[in-house]
């Protein structure tokens, strides 16, 4: 193989570190949920932790950190559409709901 064994072993040590971090974050996120924070801070905290965990998996296990530029372009475009798809539908609904509430009150 093109990589030499020493370099791969360095990778392996990194994988173990990442695993430890993932496990620790899982414990933290579950622990925090027992504190029963109010909705907004709870959502922000939980999603921040999830994003960190997700980035660790993507960057190290999926080797995104040393990936080719083409992959980044594809993923960046996808992510943009992903964000649009995620929020625009609820925005269009949200405005209608907001108006209804005003009519009622």
């Amino acid at each position, binding site marked *: 193989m093109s990589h030499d064994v020493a370099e791969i072993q360095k990778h392996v040590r990194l994988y173990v570190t990442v695993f430890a971090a993932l496990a620790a974050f899982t414990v933290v996120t579950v622990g925090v949920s027992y504190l029963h924070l109010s909705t907004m801070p709870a959502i922000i905290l939980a999603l921040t932790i999830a994003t960190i965990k997700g980035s660790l998996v993507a960057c190290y296990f999926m080797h995104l950190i040393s990936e080719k530029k083409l992959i980044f372009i594809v993923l960046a475009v996808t992510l943009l559409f992903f964000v649009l798809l995620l929020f625009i539908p609820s925005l269009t609904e949200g405005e*209608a709901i907001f108006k209804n509430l005003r009519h009622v009150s």
Partner: protein
Amino acid sequence: MSHSEHQSFWQKYIFSVDHKVIGCQYALTGLVFLFFGFCLMMLMRWQLAFPGEPLPVIGGLFSDTTMPGGVMLPEFYNSLGAMHGTIMVFLGVVPLAVGGFGNYLVPLQIGAPDMAFPKLNAASYWCYFVGGVVMFASFFVPGGAANSGWTSYPPLSDIATMGQTFWLFGMVALITSSLLGSVNFIVTIVHLRARGLSFFRLPFFVWAQFVTSFLLLLAFPPLEVAGVLQLMDRLAGSSFFLPSGLVISGTPLGVSGGGSPLLWQHLFWFLAHPEVYVLILPAIGIVTEIIVNNTRKPLYGYKTMVYSVLFLGFMSFVVWAHHMFMTGMGTTMSNFFQATTMIISIPSVVILTVLILTLWGGSIRFTVPMHFALAFLPMFAIGGLTGLPLGLTASDIPLHDTYYVIGHFHYVVAPGTLLALFGGVYYWYPKVTGRMMNEKLGKIHFWGSFLCLNGIFMPMFIQGLAGVSRRLYMPTVYAHAEAVQGTNVFMSYSAWILGLVQLIFIFNFFRSLKKGKKVESDNPWQATTLEWATPTPPPHGNFLQEPEVYRGPYEYSPPGRTEDFWPQNEEK
């Protein structure tokens, strides 16, 4: 491959992994479904022209649950409408344009021996085939085929008959097929280009397929989700699309509620708007190839076209809710989608302008494919321009859900895309079969189709402006529709004559296989792109030796050469 001669009939023509065979399978299946979908529409046109009258002769062939005594039932009319749309879009045009032309031509035009994943390619055809069979079978289940419109809006579709479940399963198969296909196309175009064939030397048709593949890849998954959610609603009793307190025929629906019918519309149009460009971009690609070849001069603005098509593809993801102005989504969001819709019309106009400017000063050859390509330009222009009033909220409100809308998108897809696809069939037929299609019959087919298509769709604008709603089973019961009923009779005759004209095409297509004029060289149109550098028809593996590319795709009439074309792979 050396052992290709020893393959059995089944390996060679049915379960082949050769992109050309798969391309032909796609194209033929697509053409059959196009004709089938057209037949559904011809049936509907009887009801529209002569509402409630028994259909002579053919009407007797139908069962009592569809057309008792030859008189069409409203449910059957709804099924025909829903399935006409579904079949034309998902089983006809896309498989023919992307699966057929794309599969056959992309590897040839980029100088590759095959697609990047030949087995995946075959798998995607068979997924499509299964989807088609499921859709076709749904006509024979109790309650008939899906009858909630091709858009399948809930709550109606959630509580519709069993045909809707078949529709959903069929769609899941079709979406899977498109996903597999689009991954294959992108990898093929990125990785398998011939030496010297940089991105900016690609024929425009390949660019069109490239952008189309990205649209399929990223826009289809949300519809797959929508399909799964609707299956859950129908089979597992969930209420994703059912709001609380829904009452049907006086009885409350026993569901938990809390869902949103608008959710379906968002997920559906997130696909279905890019889908419009999936339908039109390959057609523009085909038209570009034909026009450049038949004007004998370079494309007026190649890079402009490429940037336009990229921008078009990108923007098509940000306009979907202009189909939903009437849902009360609020002025802020409406204005946003109104603005993006106006912006996306710019690249379309740029592309059309480039194609028209390419004609300027060319020495035009009026071949049969060129007839179709030239007709595409005004037809697509009418389709596009009539779309503008629908993209603006103020004018969309009175026009929404009228025949005006039907006229608008049919101009884009039927006289637009379909004429381009027919042009493509005439243009590449000699490469696929080694014989030319009959020119006289081709011209009759062209003029007949061109006139009849306009005869069908032009009056739709009049009907729409008169306020006639789409999907009306019995138009004559409304005074405002009764007033324009005469146009319906005219349109129906146009449609039936159009059907007859297509028989000429079918006859020509099969007759030319055996009796068409044999081509004298591998490059009968004296074209520049790589597909013409292969033997006719191309063997398994395509090129006799690996091609190398030295110049852009459209070097016609270069100064200082005796011939008026300079193939991409010719060194000097």
